[in-house]
């Protein structure tokens, strides 16, 4: 029998080895690899900048505090300021590594320390506290999940990181990125936007005139974009117009749908994996053109 196995396997191997990747696809693969490099650099640059800024602020505080007035020290503390009086610091690092498991977690914290007191900074502090509590809850949930999975067989790898994405004068947005690399791989993003004028957390509804039908208007535009993208490229797939599984189809955004405001002041709607497209597509974003919402914006 073993000889027969060899023969079968040899025959199978010949067949198995027939397919070859086309030059076009190899070229596309190389492009994707370059994209991966670029995104990796961006992420690590941001991370090391953040660490450097925190370290620098700490060193300055130690050097200067003993012999300079508190007003100057105060100004120094504001060095890594991001978006007015909010700055992002690392609340806690959690790193774990063994033969099979890796956790690389950096839990961010929005800090308002060192700001002058007035009513909007009070509101800002309260908002920051609420957001920080939520972030910690999410991170702890991920770490607990990681710890309980560690005992199971297989390999587990989690990463939590953050990024400040708002670049407008009016808004500050923190993006929390949670990535689970084991199994099928899973990414989940959370967005927190603060209005820099009021210090309050911004919900989608806050951006629009009262009574306006913003959920429907935005959803219709998203559906239009989905259809256009799918028509232009066969490989793009969203859960829309699917007659077999109508219950999977994207219907309307909710008040819980994530969003942020980009550098052009446009609203960007963000979906997590599997929400509006097959899970392998990952997280997806739709930029809503200004003219679509011009009439209903506050």
């Amino acid at each position: 029998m073993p000889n027969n196995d060899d023969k079968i396997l040899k025959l199978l191997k010949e067949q198995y080895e027939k397919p070859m990747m086309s030059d076009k696809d190899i070229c596309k693969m190389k492009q994707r690899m370059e994209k991966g490099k670029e995104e990796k650099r961006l992420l690590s640059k941001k991370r090391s900048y953040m660490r450097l800024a925190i370290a620098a602020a700490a060193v300055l505080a130690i050097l200067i505090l003993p012999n300079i007035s508190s007003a100057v020290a105060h100004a120094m503390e504001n060095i890594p300021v991001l978006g007015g009086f909010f700055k992002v610091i690392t609340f806690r690092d959690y790193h774990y590594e063994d033969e099979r498991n890796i956790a690389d977690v950096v839990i961010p914290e929005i800090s308002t320390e060192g700001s002058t007191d007035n009513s909007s900074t009070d509101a800002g502090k309260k908002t920051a506290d609420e957001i920080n509590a939520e972030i910690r809850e999410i991170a702890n949930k991920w770490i607990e999940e990681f710890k309980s999975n560690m005992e199971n067989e297989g390999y587990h790898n989690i990463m939590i990181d953050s990024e400040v994405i708002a670049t407008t004068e009016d808004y500050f947005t923190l993006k929390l990125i949670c990535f689970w690399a084991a199994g099928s791989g899973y990414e989940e993003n959370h967005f927190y936007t603060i209005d820099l004028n009021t210090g309050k957390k911004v919900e989608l509804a806050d951006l629009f005139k009262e009574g306006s039908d913003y959920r429907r208007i935005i959803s219709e535009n998203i559906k239009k974009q989905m259809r256009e993208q799918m028509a232009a490229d066969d490989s793009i797939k969203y859960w829309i117009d699917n007659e077999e599984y109508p219950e999977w189809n994207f219907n309307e955004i909710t008040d819980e749908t994530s969003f942020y405001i980009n550098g052009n002041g446009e609203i960007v709607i963000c979906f997590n994996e599997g929400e509006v497209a097959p899970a392998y597509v990952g997280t997806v974003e739709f930029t809503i053109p200004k003219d679509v919402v011009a009439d209903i914006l506050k």
Partner: protein
Amino acid sequence: MFHRGNEQEEKIEQTILEKYNSYYRMAMSFVHNEEDAADIVQEGAYKAIKNSNSLKHIEYAETWVYRIMMNEIYKRLNAKKAKSIDAGDFIDLKVEDKYENIDLMRALDSIPDNDKAVIQLKYFEDLKLDEIAYILGENLSTVKSRLYRGLKKLRCKMDDLDMKGDD
């Protein structure tokens, strides 16, 4: 925190450029569609490079990339199955153009996915069983039993085919 970033990235890049056809063949044997298979390799290559910092032991680069590719294959497979649950046969007929001996490949396809992956990694890609265990995220004894079970099923299928041929 990670000083070895570039060394890992270079090693992974080099691995992908050497082995992409292996990943592609593996993907083809599961998704039976050139477009999907190419997409899997492209996506896997992108993810491997982007997350190259999380490769802790550079000597495991090859199996590490394989593991990412297998995850991509399973991910795509699950999405495809979910989509065509009612459609019955989700094997793309295009496969016939690619393999000359379709009966042989059908026999391999009749084996459960994980068992099939073990056989292919072991006999077609010449990987060791402990490497396969890492790639599939399973322990060694599970991989061994998959191998023996898979081979047994394959043998039965081939016997069926031989009999048909002789008649």
